């Protein structure tokens, strides 16, 4: 069960990072185009808000990739001195707390998306709906919570984790 969850989490993170990468390239192209068009008196309408939305996709869709690569900085000055058992326990507590928190973030971001959807809220310049982007961020937070769950299970059942 752990290995299946692990495989799904890794695969999804990989796909998500592709979306993040495409958003990053799109953002680069859009910012460059706007920079070139502005002196000609024809700036791209709504470029700033589009870049902001793409930026949200870049950050959110790379959350899983960063978590899998342990890119998030932590202070390990004390934990390196712990015994293997204590370290596993600490890892489990840590993963559990983070998982709960990111489930909260998932819920609240989705709630915010639903609110602006119901209100019919649109962006300032382009007047386009943007709640799908907010839902996308929420979905990425959910993926992070799943990866943290895998971490938790691996810490609690190290042998099953190794098999994975």
């Amino acid at each position, binding site marked *: 069960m752990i290995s299946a969850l692990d495989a799904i989490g890794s695969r999804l993170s990989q796909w998500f*990072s592709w979306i*993040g*990468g495409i958003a*990053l*390239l799109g*953002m*680069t*192209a*859009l*910012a*460059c185009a*706007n*920079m070139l068009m*502005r002196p000609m008196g024809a700036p791209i309408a709504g470029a*700033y*808000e589009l*870049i*902001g*939305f*793409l*930026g*949200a996709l*870049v*950050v*959110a*869709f*790379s*959350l899983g*990739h*960063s978590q899998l*690569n342990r*890119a*998030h*900085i*932590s*202070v*390990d*000055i*004390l*934990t390196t001195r712990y015994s293997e058992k204590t370290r596993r326990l*600490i*890892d489990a*507590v*840590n993963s559990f*707390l*983070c998982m709960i*928190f990111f489930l*909260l*973030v998932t819920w*609240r*971001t989705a*709630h*915010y998306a639903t609110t602006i959807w119901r209100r019919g809220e649109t962006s300032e310049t382009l007047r386009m709906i943007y709640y799908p*982007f*907010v839902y996308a*961020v929420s979905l990425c*937070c959910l993926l992070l919570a799943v990866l943290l769950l895998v971490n938790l299970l691996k810490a609690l059942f190290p042998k099953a984790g190794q098999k994975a």
Partner: protein
Amino acid sequence: MIGIIGILVLLVVMMFLQMPVGFSMAMVGFCGLWYVTGLDSALSMIGTETWANFSSYGLTVIPLFMLMGTICFYSGVNKGVYDTAYKWFGRTRGGIAMATVMACAGFAAICGSNNATAATMSTVALPEMKKYGYDKALSAGAIACGSTLGVVIPPSVVLIVYGIQTGQSIGKLFWGSTLPGLLMALLFILTIYVLCARHPQWGPAGPRVKITEKLKALPGMSEVIILFGLVMGGLYTGAYTPTEAGAAGAFFALLIAITIRRKLSWKGFVGAILDALKVTSMVIVIVWGAVIFGRFLTISRLPFEIVELVSNLRISPPLVMTAILVIYAIAGMVMDALGFLLISIPIFFPLATQLGYDPIWFGCILTVVTTMGAVTPPVGICAYVVRGVAVDIPLSEVFKGVIWFIPAYCVTMAVMIFFPEIALYLPSLVR
């Protein structure tokens, strides 16, 4: 009081549970807000704050500058820079170590991260110094400390984050940090010169290089000059926003990689994007956590109370500033500097401005002290990176090498304190 408890809980969570800095700041900030303002308000805050941070136009500058740096890394621009410096200065005593520092400064001008500079330079310069019998500690120290120029010489992720957090112009911060960064590089070179003058066997002279070869190596530096000029020139004239500067930098880095260098494979291109995503996510999660934690601190009124307390103590501003720098130096020893910077900005920024220090100057001096934290033991990330590459150099030797360069950081800060113009003159010219 609740603010102080919040900081203590944060430290416990980060130190004892080894929870990532960004996650722990967000979580403790959320719990603090829950306690002070109630659950409903705290819950609605995390939803809106997550979206507001992730979609902030100001923060989009981070992935774009990261992409510029990673494309340069994967296309081997760093090697060209090192090759130029090596051929021009390698012949002198300690010259290869000096060339390494110069190459670090050059690479720092297109890359905003210490770790990327450390990893890059370790792989390029260490084998060369080993080949010529350089002292292990000196080699490792020169690379570790040279790589800390990564965030001092613009573009710099620390300055971007500081600018966003405090509402200061990123362009002005970049220009403000340029001269202190160059001074620091010069002081590193001077340190190597003095060490090799006293211990000639530590840095034997490299091979003689013909002048034709030296001239041939010059184009290796041109790409850095073009990219740096493009980014900083645009920010100087106000022609484009920092985000657009980053995008233009990334685009031209890609153009150079494809048309001039022709060394960027598809695999390298994908690697550059994935690396940029990884660092972006890491930095923005820390900023997001810091914003939530900062909200809590503001509501707890701790920053205002500290400002009031220090003002009432009537201590002279230079003394307070020195104390702030000492706190940063100590914190940099035990935790990641960027994390601590973001935790502490809500407290120290109002204090520094209240004492009459220029916000741009403060950002620049904080960059120097936090970058020093990247090499000081026991938690010196850049020293770890160098150790990771140099398998035959023990960590203790790396730290021994680093210690020789610490005076250079202190002198840079002292010059900035006594001659603030070094960080303020260039920003004053920015339109």
